[in-house]
């Protein structure tokens, strides 16, 4: 009972989501440079972006897994906490964006590469995340009512943009695909279950 209470507390979920940021904050505050001499602001670009994508993907796989295992308690527990994962994705994406701006050093440099394929896709994902994160609270849900869900569905566009951003920003496709192929397969399963087998029981 005690363990369950802890797992169900808000502090636990926030702590869990903040865990990856601890070494990042330590590296930033101590000004540690990477082995190859890159400053913390530059080498943290990758992990911040990676965790933003990971938390976005986690928030997106909950529904397909609910469909797959409707009675599973873990995925129900996850569903109840989906907004936390989304907000965490935004927080890491915001850190990622700030580090990028610091790393680039000037507005001119930032604007100069804005239309590169690996860059505008990242900005697109970030600016989709922003209203989604701002409305991921009970008050916004009440206020938006039936419009809340369509707004949150923009995550699919953000996911495509994130995938392209990740693949093209350094032309490395492997790591991005490792993260996105499972999501793609789960979405394929969901589409197949929802639209092709005529199943009517589609959990949230």
């Amino acid at each position: 009972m005690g363990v369950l209470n802890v797992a169900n507390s808000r502090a636990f979920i926030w702590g869990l989501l903040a865990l990856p940021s601890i070494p990042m904050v330590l590296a930033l505050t101590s000004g540690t440079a990477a082995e190859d001499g890159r400053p913390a602001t530059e080498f943290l670009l990758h992990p911040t972006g990676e965790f933003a994508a990971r938390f976005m993907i986690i928030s997106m796989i909950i529904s397909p897994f609910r469909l797959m295992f409707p009675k599973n308690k873990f995925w129900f527990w996850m569903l109840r906490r989906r907004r936390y994962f989304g907000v965490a994705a935004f927080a890491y994406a915001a850190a990622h964006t700030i580090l990028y701006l610091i790393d680039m050093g000037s507005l001119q440099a930032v604007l100069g590469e804005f239309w590169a394929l690996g860059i505008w896709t990242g900005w697109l994902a970030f600016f989709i995340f922003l209203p989604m994160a701002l409305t991921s609270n009970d008050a916004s849900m009440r206020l938006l009512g039936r419009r809340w869900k369509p707004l949150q569905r923009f995550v699919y566009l953000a996911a495509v943009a994130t995938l392209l951003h990740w693949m093209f920003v350094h032309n490395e496709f492997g790591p991005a695909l490792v993260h996105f192929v499972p999501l793609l397969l789960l979405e394929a399963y969901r589409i197949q279950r929802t639209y092709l087998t005529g199943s009517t029981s589609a959990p949230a």
Partner: protein
Amino acid sequence: MNLTLHTAISLLMCVFTFPACATGLYECAPTERSSWLTQDEVTEKLIGEGWQVRRMKEDGGCWEVYGTTPQGQRVEVYLDPVSGEVLLINQRGTILFRKDS
């Protein structure tokens, strides 16, 4: 080969041969490793031409340098490892320059 086709082919290669998922953005002709310019020589050459060099690695038999062009663009640039000639400049997924081979 245009970028879209390159992407499509690379994606397929990545899916089927995952661990050896090279970016394959540029392939340099096979050369003797002993004839390669050292990292310091590459850095010196580029800095002399107004570039900034952050770091470099080997990719596709070329030197792949992460740096900044004389115009201040953050790019990855592929160099002929023997002559140091600039073969391809890639700015965050957009090809700025590709030497016709």
